[in-house]
């Protein structure tokens, strides 16, 4: 089993797929930006 596959399987074992974890993380970050917790993200 490849490493990528193992991480995906590990994510699933935590109850959700890797896709959904990525989605939740991104939405959480967007929420933090929206409510002003993350005001400026430098690049």
């Amino acid at each position, binding site marked *: *089993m*490849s*490493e*990528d*596959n*193992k*991480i*995906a*399987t*590990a*994510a699933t*074992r*935590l109850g959700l*797929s*890797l*896709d*959904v*974890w*990525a*989605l939740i*993380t*991104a*939405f959480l*970050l*967007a929420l933090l*930006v*929206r409510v002003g917790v*993350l*005001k*400026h*993200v*430098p*690049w």
Partner: protein
Amino acid sequence: MATSVTFPSEDQNFFASVVRFVPGVLLLAAIGFAGKVLEQSINGYAKAHHLVIPNIEYVLWAIAIGLLIANTVTIPKIFIPGIATYEFWLKAGIVLLGARFVVGDVLKLGGISIALVVLEISGSLFLMTVLGRLFNLKPKLTSLLAVGSAVCGVSAIIAAKGAIDADDEDSSFAIAAILALGAIALVTFPLIGHALHLSDNAYGLWSGLAVDNTAEATAAGALYSDVAGKVAVLAKTTRNATIGFVVLGYAIYWASRGQAEKVKNKGAFLWEKFPKFVLGFLVISLLVSVHVFNKEQVGALANLSRWAFLLTFAGVGLRTNFREMAKQGVRPFIVGALGEVLIASLTLGLVVAANAIWKL
């Protein structure tokens, strides 16, 4: 490629399982940041000394540093779980990238992408199947290569492997071929794009259509320009959205030959295989379009997306180990390479035609 990783057992708590990823994620961040610093330092030096040198983007530096490490030293096991999270960062980055597209852009470029993706997938499946037969590859290996080159690289191969009951060895062959060819595309695509003077949109569309793995497609686009990078992600995301349909087609085919389990619930199968981050990308794009976020917040989201991609690019370099790929044998690679050259030519023709019609 990478060494094995043990999973958190049932009695390990969530915190302990997350901590395992920290060293590797820090390594990704350090490499990505080093790439960014190198780009800025070299540009600053050139400017201060009035030198004219080509700008080498942080994307290339991050990949190159990762490649150097992966192919010269043995990466300690403690870093492996975190390095493998590059795909997580990629998907989170794609969702956040939605902030850089208003819905109108998505509808226009996405509409063009859908038309081209249908042609690309049909052509790729046909070409890879013919080449696999010509080179006498095992039928299921041919199916995996066809799915990998038509849709979305490693994810599609992993999805198809389970659905058509293919061997581990076949999927390793197919994954190695797709990754090796993706690494070659990182070098060749920008050179071809510049030689042909492709616009940012046209080049981004071509990268998204022709480069198989999402991480490499994103990097190949970003190596050309920032705009090309985001268009490449849009085109590639459109391709990714078709994964369920293509894998379902192959699953039904192999089941009809008695060599894979029958798909009982096709709707559930399609939803299971559908990449959910595509929906996230559309939701963020919609929220930005209806002004849920102000201008500064949109900028913050775009920068968060860039940071997520930075970790991804470092991961692309770190997980590309040429010695491991060479062990997989040369025949699948030759079939893959021939197929990819033909697919790249086909998609380039499609993009040039689309450019002439819609003025990308």
